[in-house]
């Protein structure tokens, strides 16, 4: 699959942010011991944003069909701006169809949705434990729930990794 780097591909930017800035740099690089240390220490304010990140992942799943489509280029590409709109529309339709033939967007979106739902569930269970008062908090419980988050984060990371990094050229 040929992928074209494009700053206008917001879906690719979101993909990268979720995979790298969130999952790799904030979730997968933390062991259960570190999470307990954070909870018992100065706290971890960014943790409260993680469920919002799962919403972003679900939104990305909804964008996959059109977000990486070369049809976007027909609108963005200055040399094609002079074509009659009817012709541009025809080109858009054809290249979009060709893109769908080379990239299974439905499967990719489903995979993101399923892994995100699992991740969200694990995060909510973690937060249930995290939000307990100090004297009711169980380190072992927290570690176990964080391990579940890590187990959910890897498939989601892999699903995001499988998405294109830019516009797909058929």
């Amino acid at each position, binding site marked *: *699959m*040929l*992928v*074209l*780097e494009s*700053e206008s*591909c917001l879906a*690719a*930017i979101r*993909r*990268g*942010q979720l*995979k*790298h*800035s969130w999952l790799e*740099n*904030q979730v997968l*690089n*933390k062991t259960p011991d*570190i999470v307990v*240390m*954070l909870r018992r220490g100065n706290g*971890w*304010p*960014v943790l409260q944003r993680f469920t919002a990140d799962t919403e972003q992942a679900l939104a990305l799943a909804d964008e996959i069909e059109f977000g990486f489509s*070369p049809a976007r*280029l*027909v609108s963005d*590409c*200055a*040399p*094609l701006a*002079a*074509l*009659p709109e009817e*012709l541009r529309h*025809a*080109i858009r339709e*054809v*290249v979009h*169809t*060709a893109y769908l033939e080379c990239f299974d967007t439905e499967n990719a979106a489903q995979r993101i949705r399923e892994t995100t739902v699992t991740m969200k569930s694990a995060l909510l269970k973690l937060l249930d434990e995290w939000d307990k008062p100090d004297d009711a908090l169980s380190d072992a419980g927290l570690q176990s729930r964080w391990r579940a988050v890590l187990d959910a984060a890897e498939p989601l990371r892999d699903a995001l990794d*499988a*998405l*294109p*990094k*830019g516009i797909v*050229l*058929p």
Partner: protein
Amino acid sequence: MVKYCWFDHRVHDKPNCLVPELEAFSSLMTLFGAADRKLTSLPSACDSNYTCFIHADGPNGFRQKDWVGIADATKRRFVIFVSSHPETINVSTIPGVYALRKPLPRVVKLMSSEPARLEQFKRSCESGNPDMSCFGHPDHEHLIAAYLVGVALSRGTTIDDTALPVELLPNAQAEYHSLIGAGISLSKPDDLKTQLNLIRQALVPLRQGGTC
């Protein structure tokens, strides 16, 4: 004269702030003659005439908005965010703030082999309008447009020869030559169908790199 500096917040002693080293960042700053101008904190808001490269892979505590806040195009104070994952850099369109959306190893290689790009970028900073195109390949919009038209033609779309902009084919051919060298002739729309694979191969180097 514009000065160059950089900020790499990578922290070693806080396990929850570990950020992998940004490959080629120090090499890039060496090219700018600024390897020894590594900042440890925000520069003074009174300083002007500097271009600061900021590692945007932030740990907890990285304050992107503070860096954005020091940018001031009128004082030729520019902030350029770099990252190991350039597509993740999230900056709004603010005067004086830029995102270098290219992998740094590739940028270093390109600027080392084409020093004129580095000089052009420096001149653009002096003039108050950093030219980010210096960090990447030339624009290949005509070649991309030609490819899309070629795909449509190959799938049966009827396109009147006169409907295409006159400059599309010659410019696409020129862009092809800039990437690959000679070996293609785009004099009529039908050439797009017959040489579609060649055009596609020429577009491969524009890929960001790595697997999808």
